[in-house]
């Protein structure tokens, strides 16, 4: 007997399936030298799109390099880079409409830059100053902006996954021709929210692109200690979802897969799972030291597969980039970021009154009472609370 959810074929001898029963190839378009594989079907890309993608990559590299330095100098408390994963992030966001809703994990600031987040906005968030859209309430890199349809980052892993299903369903019910994209790592895919979110999206038919950055490590834990199955992609098939595995260091492969995923999601009101195979070239965060769990040789090997370099070679081959312009761009962004740091770190912290705002739509009586009592205390001991005592 079998219910309607499975096929009806029967066999009469014991035969188990295993992780290799499902054959999942990796989509790769660009070769290491930046030329397309023979027979490769390229994504839709013109010079303007290619330049927007490349510009985002250069900015992100510079931002990561400079802010890592700023953290080491003690100017900001924390930082995370997306070095090594730029193709996965920028290649996917570039396949979307700018109104498609992004629910990111935390390492996707390149997508935010692609949408137009300014250097000043990045800095205001990282320095928790009064111009930060998030009012200085979260650790550095927890960006969010309604104007760019990029939901604010939440530290707990995987919570954005079932939320993306809700956003996708909401977009469908409103009749908007947009999708949600949900980024997460292969480690977060072990959370219960992953199962909940993907299963619900498939059952409830929500137009969502679930984009897994399989970068090899969840902090120190390698994939072999994270799951025993055939990557993350094999699970998508189990949920009855269109699924693809791509070379996450190949900008054109990611772009092609995401463009087609988006078209499918909109046409069928259905989710798609993309597993991008990539590598986190940097540490997990500034609080992490990878030398304790992986070798320099391994890192060097992956550095040879630098996703930005491969895309750059393709651009040069196409005649859309020359080396002199490229060097000038990097230099310009270095100066821009450095100047923005100097400005942002001098902007004061949000006023103390903001501490009770946005808990509810309007502060409760109890909150107002607590604020008054706190202000009186800070006024009494101003030296102990220098961030706010000067502007009570």
């Amino acid at each position, binding site marked *: 007997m079998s219910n309607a959810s499975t096929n009806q074929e029967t066999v009469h001898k014991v035969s188990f399936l295993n992780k290799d029963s499902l054959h999942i190839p990796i989509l790769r378009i660009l070769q290491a030298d930046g030329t397309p594989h023979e027979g490769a079907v390229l994504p839709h890309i013109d010079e303007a799109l290619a330049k927007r993608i490349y510009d985002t990559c250069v900015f992100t590299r510079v931002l990561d390099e400079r802010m890592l330095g700023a953290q080491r100098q003690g100017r900001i408390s924390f930082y995370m880079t997306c070095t090594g994963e730029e193709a996965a992030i920028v290649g996917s966001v570039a396949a979307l409409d700018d109104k498609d809703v992004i629910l990111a994990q935390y390492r996707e600031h390149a997508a935010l830059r692609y949408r137009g987040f300014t250097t000043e906005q990045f800095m205001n968030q990282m320095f928790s100053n009064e111009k930060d859209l998030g009012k200085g309430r979260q650790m550095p890199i927890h960006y969010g*902006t309604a104007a760019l349809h990029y939901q604010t980052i939440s530290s*707990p892993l995987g919570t954005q996954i079932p939320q993306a299903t809700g956003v996708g369903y909401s977009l469908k019910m409103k009749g908007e021709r947009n999708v949600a994209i949900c980024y997460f790592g292969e480690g977060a895919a072990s959370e219960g929210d992953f199962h909940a979110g993907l299963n619900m999206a498939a059952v409830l038919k929500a137009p969502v692109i679930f984009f897994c950055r399989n970068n090899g490590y969840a902090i120190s834990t390698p994939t072999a200690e994270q799951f025993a199955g055939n990557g993350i992609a094999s699970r998508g098939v189990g949920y009855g979802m269109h699924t693809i595995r791509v070379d996450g260091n190949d900008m054109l492969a990611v772009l092609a897969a995401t463009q087609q995923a988006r078209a499918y999601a909109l046409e069928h009101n259905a989710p798609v799972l993309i597993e991008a195979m990539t590598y986190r070239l940097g540490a997990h965060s500034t609080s992490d030291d990878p030398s304790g769990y992986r070798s320099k040789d391994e890192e060097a090997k992956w550095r040879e597969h630098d996703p930005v370099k491969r895309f750059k070679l393709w651009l040069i081959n196409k005649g859309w980039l020359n080396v002199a312009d490229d060097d000038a761009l990097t230099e310009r962004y270095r100066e821009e970021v450095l100047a923005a740091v100097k400005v942002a770190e001098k902007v004061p912290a949000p006023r103390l009154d903001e501490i009770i705002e946005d808990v509810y739509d309007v502060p*409760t009586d109890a909150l107002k009472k607590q604020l008054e009592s706190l202000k009186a205390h800070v006024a009494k001991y101003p030296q102990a609370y220098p961030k706010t005592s000067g502007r009570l």
Partner: protein
Amino acid sequence: MAEMNMLQAINSALRIAMEKDPSMLVFGEDVGHFGGVFRATSGLQDTFGKGRCFNTPLTEQGIAGFANGLASNGTTAVAEIQFADYIFPAFDQIVNESAKFRYRSGNEFDVGGLVYRTPYGGGINGGHYHSQSPEAYFTQTPGLKVVVPRNAYQAKGLLLAAIRDKNPVVFFEPKRLYRASVGEVPEGDYELPLGKAEVVREGKHITLVAWGAQMEIIEKAADMAEKEGISCEIIDLRTLAPWDVGTVAESVKKTGRLLVNHEAPLTGGFAGEIAATIQEECFLYLESPIARVCGLDTPYPLIHEKEYMPDALKTFEAIKASVNF
């Protein structure tokens, strides 16, 4: 006006809210065609279609995460968690996500259009996992509103207000009263205020505070006390977060005594919060220690349900002890 039980009143509230707000969705386990295991969503799928009232897979964390996503994108979301005992897989999505959505984003995003409806409480021979009253886990989370109605009329008016409130609300429904609480309920649209307690009976000697299903227990205890010449003032807190300190404090300043009753275990229960605040507000007015008549600090026991419960008799004894202190 029509005679309705609490389920019919809740169903009526959902129907009215869905008619007036075309974006509103109702979902959860078995809530679709079947109308929910208690039938609170009965007939909604027939009227509004499978797109707006539907079953979800069996995953409370998924239901809550999905609800957060809907509300973050401007869709009104009313999620049912089939029993409050099963809300814990959704705890992270409620406590770390719903409650902090607005604050953490600096008001760039919010999930104000979200209500979690969930039946709570004992008295139905439900044992550990169909009887709990987990409200205090949520009252300690800034960003959430926590509401508990005491009868059919209150349930409809408070639920309509909760759905339209601009903050996420956890709405605990006393399942023991689902069919037992029958009364006159307006057929049309009305709201009762969140964050406001109600003095349901005026009295002189002691203030009794409860919410939800325990309201009828303290009313019964007050009747017993009245025969002994003790006059009780009875307050239904209705909203636990944010709670109406003013109404309770004003009453205690008049009576000089306070008793709080809840079904949840004593330790860490919301009665402790009320007692601490009232002793601050009313210290010089108090004639006796603030009494708490609550569940035992045990899991909810099936066979000893009657003994576990903070019933009218236990409340009556505590009233006498307070007055004779």
